[in-house]
Structure formats: structure tokens, C-alpha cells
């Protein structure tokens, strides 16, 4: 017997958004890890090789990309804390305010890091 056309439930609740956000940021972090390993592996070609790579990555565009990475990690980390909280059975009935509060909290370290990085982005 056939199923309906849906491939995923079109949920529009905050929990569904949080779920997608967690999956997508998780994938992004995994992709970054691969790139990170690639960069680090330049050390195999000797110190000069590695220093060259590091110099290349000091370009403002990479600092900007790192800010994006930081945002992704903060979202994933703070939302991860929320999931752990729920899995331990706490705050489940207040999931929406908890999600909003944690995301708001995640903005603080991001703003601080951005302020520090700003002079390196607009050199």
C-alpha cells in the first residue's frame, strides 16, 4: 500500500526548527573537521609548508569564515545542552523559552569573539 508523498513531517513548531538547526550545524562541524585535518596535515610536508598554510589562513576572509564556524558551534553546543537537559527529564514543559533563552545566551560569546576578531577582518 502506498504512503503519502511526504518525505518528512512539515512540522512548524520551535522544536522542529531546533532539530533541523542541530542536524545542519552538526553536519557543518563534521565538514569543518575534515578541512581542519587537511590543513593540519600540511605539517607532514615540513614546518615551512605548515607555516605557509597558516599564513594563508590569516586572510580576513578566513577569519570571517571562522566567525561563521563559531556561530555554528555555539548554536550546536547550547542546543546540545538543552537536549541533555531534556534527556535527564528537566524543563521539558518549558522547551520553547529554554530554547530561546539558550540561543540568546549564545549570542554573548559570539559578540565578544566578533569584537576581538573585528580588527583582523577589516585590516
Amino acid at each position: 500500500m502506498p504512503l503519502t508523498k511526504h518525505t518528512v513531517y512539515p512540522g512548524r513548531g520551535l522544536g522542529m526548527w531546533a532539530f533541523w538547526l542541530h542536524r545542519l550545524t552538526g553536519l557543518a562541524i563534521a565538514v569543518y573537521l575534515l578541512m581542519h585535518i587537511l590543513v593540519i596535515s600540511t605539517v607532514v610536508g615540513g614546518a615551512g609548508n605548515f607555516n605557509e598554510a597558516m599564513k594563508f589562513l590569516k586572510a580576513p576572509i578566513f577569519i570571517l569564515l571562522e566567525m561563521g564556524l563559531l556561530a555554528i558551534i555555539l548554536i550546536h553546543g547550547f542546543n546540545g545542552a538543552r537536549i541533555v537537559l531534556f534527556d535527564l527529564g528537566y524543563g521539558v514543559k518549558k522547551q520553547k523559552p529554554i530554547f530561546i533563552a539558550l540561543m540568546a545566551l549564545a549570542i554573548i560569546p559570539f559578540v565578544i569573539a566578533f569584537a576581538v576578531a573585528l580588527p583582523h577582518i577589516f585590516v
Partner: protein
Amino acid sequence: MSQTVTLRIYRRDPDLDAAPKYQNYQIELTPGLTVLMALYHVLENVDKTLAFRASCRSAVCGSCGMHINGKNMLACETQLAPLGNEVLIEPLPHLPVLKDLAVDMTRFWDKYEKVRPYLIALKAPPPSGKERLQSVEDRKKIDEFIDCILCACCHTSCSTAWWDKEYLGPAALAKMYRFVADSRDEGGAERLQIAAREDGVFRCHTIFNCTEECPKKIPITFGIQEIKKRVLWGKLAGRM
């Protein structure tokens, strides 16, 4: 002046149609018209081949769960007017379609059966021969969860239940919590063993779709997480 609404209804007879089609029906909007009343109007006056499930018309039997404008809800308690000029009516998603809006609930009931959805009482009944009593406070603990009408709106909105065919799903687990939290039930340990299995509570990713879509506003995810908590601490304390 009368206003008309277009019902865009999912039609499929698996024996005849290779693919579903959507059929439009114009219906005149009258005060208080529900989606179910509109479907009955189509069935009785326009198209006698339309198939859907319904019974009580008052949100008690749980037969008329449908996917209306992209959301699982009960057709009988949903007013047509606020849904717009074109209303999309589809069967509950991710259950096999028997015909049109009627789905095969076998998988849903199989899972329901697995949680032993009845009171397990080991002690003899009270000497009075009457019901097993419980305090007002204890009764309050299961207040929300006894409201379940088994409409499958939660189960068919659960992303994990879509991806993992073995996962017990929110409806069965909500029923399990209804008994786990019941002071009269003595099957707790056995129930938690079922919940601790690979296809049990730990498949819940706290997406909250079940809680969002429940027509009875049961905090289903809360129930699942409560069972999870009991299993977790039970395992850590070596009780399980």
C-alpha cells in the same frame, strides 16, 4: 452573501491509481461548518466514492485524524472558516493509504499493544470488591495523559517514527507513561524494560512535533522524557 471554500482532497485508490490525485470540491461556507461536516457534505451530495473515517463528531473517538493544511488535526473539531479559501485535506502522513483519507493503522496498533496498555495489578483487589482507590494528588499526575483518544496525530507527526519503523512512537509511549505514573499500576518495572529497548524511549529526539500536534494538548514529549529519566536513573542505580 454566501462564501464558498474549495476543498482540495487527496484521492487515491491503490488498486486503481498509480499516483494520488487531488480533487477540488466547492462548498458553501455556513456558520459553524467543520471540516468533517464539509467532508460529509461532499460524500452525501457530490461524490459518493470519497472515503474517510469518522464517528463521534465531538473529538472523543479519534477516528477523523487528518493532515489538514499541512498539520495533523481532527476534522470534527476543526472549523473550516479560519482555514482560508482553499483547504488542503490529506490522509495522516506516513501510514499506508487504504483509500483517499483512510489509512491503515495496523502498525500503530501493533506498537500500542507492545506497551501493554492496560492496568497491571498484582495485588488482590480491595476486600470491598470495589475499585482500586487512589488519592486526588495521584490522580492529578495522570490527568493529561488519560485524555488520549488514539487518533495517531502524534504518531504520524513524529520524525523518528517515520525513519525508524520499529520505534514505539509517541502514542504508545504516552500510554505507557499513563500507567507508569499511575499509583495503582504495578507493571512499572516491566514497562520500563520495554521502554529501555533499542526501539523505545531513547529513539525520541525531543522534536516536540507530537506535543504540538496533539488535539488533546497532551504534553507527550514530557511523558516520554519522564520514562527516559526513570530508565536512566534505574540503570545508573543498578535497579534495572
